[in-house]
């Protein structure tokens, strides 16, 4: 009887032992990980593998929206305009304005946001600068080999007009500018002052330039198509 009981408990031990070992080893592993100083490793892992977009159904991507913007002057169309009005804020990749400068025959679409794909399509406004119609410095750049090839031919007093779906904004060239690519002097915020800064790379023999050239313009008129409610 005792022998049979011993045999039964021996068999039970044989079956239970691997599970017991798995439980003990697994528990020790989890305990060891939680007690060990792995903060630095976890920090690096979180930084290196932070993109969880792959686990979601939608992923972010650049949406480029090109569109026709009416550049007919308000006087020609008889459209009433207002000094203050509603602004339709653009999204990154959207063509939200048309830039014209009759003095140099410039007429180019302006995209909100700047990257190589958008610069291939037109002029680009940096997202940190003021949206047309708001107070501040509107900063727009384009490639010197394409759309802004004649930018430096603008003279003080020349008219520059930007058309959007919500209004027309007229500037006059106040000064020609030249600065190093690392200098933020003309590209930063201008508190309480309305400016337009247009710039491009200084043409070199060939290759990249470290110098930027362009014009700084002052606001002459804001004409909104819809009043503020």
């Amino acid at each position, binding site marked *: 009887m005792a022998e049979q009981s011993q045999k039964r408990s021996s068999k039970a*031990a*044989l079956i239970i*032992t*691997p599970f*017991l*070992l*798995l439980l*003990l*080893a*697994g528990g*020790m*592993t989890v305990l060891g990980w939680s007690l060990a100083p792995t903060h630095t490793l976890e920090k690096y892992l979180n*930084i*290196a*593998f*932070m*993109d*969880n977009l*792959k*686990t979601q159904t939608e992923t972010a991507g650049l949406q480029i929206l090109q569109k026709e913007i009416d550049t007919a002057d308000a006087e020609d169309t008889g459209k009433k305009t207002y000094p203050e009005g509603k602004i339709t804020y653009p999204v990154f990749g959207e063509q939200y304005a048309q830039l014209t400068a009759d003095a140099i025959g410039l007429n180019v679409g302006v995209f909100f946001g700047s990257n*190589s*794909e958008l*610069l*291939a399509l037109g002029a680009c406004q940096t997202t940190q600068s003021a949206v047309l119609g708001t107070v501040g410095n509107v900063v727009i750049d384009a*490639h*010197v*080999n*394409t759309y802004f090839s004649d930018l430096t031919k603008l003279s003080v007093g020349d008219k520059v007009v930007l058309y959007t779906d919500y209004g027309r904004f007229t500037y006059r060239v106040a000064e020609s500018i030249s600065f190093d690519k690392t200098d933020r002097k003309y590209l930063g915020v201008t508190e309480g002052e309305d400016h337009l800064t247009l710039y491009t*790379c200084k043409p*070199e*023999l*060939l*290759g*990249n330039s470290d110098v930027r050239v362009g014009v700084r313009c002052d606001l002459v008129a804001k004409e909104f198509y819809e009043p503020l409610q």
Partner: protein
Amino acid sequence: MKRTIKYLASVILSLLLIFSFIALTCSVLLRGRALNPAAYHRIVAEQHLTDKISVRLTNYFTQQENTTGIPVSVYAESLKSENLEPVVDITLRKLFDYVYGVAPDTETKPDFTVLEGDLRKFFEQYAEENGIARDAAFEDALRKNMDAAEKKITTECDVFKTGSLAEAGLLGKARKIYPLTVWLIPVTGAFTLLLLLILFLMYRRTVDRWFYWVASSVLVSSILMLVPSAWLSATNWFDRFAVKSEQIFAAVTGFLYGLTHTVTVYAVCGIAAAVLLYVIAGICGTVRHRKEAVRNAKH
């Protein structure tokens, strides 16, 4: 009481054996893959990284054309996949030379003779067509463009981000630890053998029990390795890698998935080996019981 003590001792030895097996597997993987340049060269070939780099660089220089005025055709020869392979090779070689302690730093000097020749030819042709003097300013502009292009190509070919790893101090740490890793396999192997020997001495009269305990240790260590590796593979966890540059993403995730796959294979083989050992234990146990039964019958 004696049986209980023996059982507890076996559990403790098995736990040590489990972690010893895992340590031995990790040591083999570390020396055989993580610290072996052949594994990285294999990834470069399997993931067709030089093709990806070629496409990426071609797109880059095409976009740059608007700014620089240099047509992408000037770079065509240098951006061919077969001409980028030596650049990738040299960055990998320098990485391991540094970790092995052979080289003082990770700076590479790939051969850009073809690129420099093509750029010079284009510049000189442009200068001749436009009546530009080949003076110091000309040479300066040419040199600047050569340096910029070489830097861009070298950066894109650095698929395992050697520069970033070096800046973060991780390569320095790997260099310090590397001499110790030479002892990893011998030490873990010796410890494993010692534990097996101690268990054998405990069960030298009942060898079936020795097979049983070894099988249980192998089984549990395999399960502990299989669960995380299978989960990482099933959830494509490494796709969360933050660097989305195509060739770097392919290189790093390719390497990590390869490592995970190897761990999974080792674990599955371990489970199969455990099953075999259980069968052997069963057979040996049956033979032993029959012998005992015969001996008891005689007495």
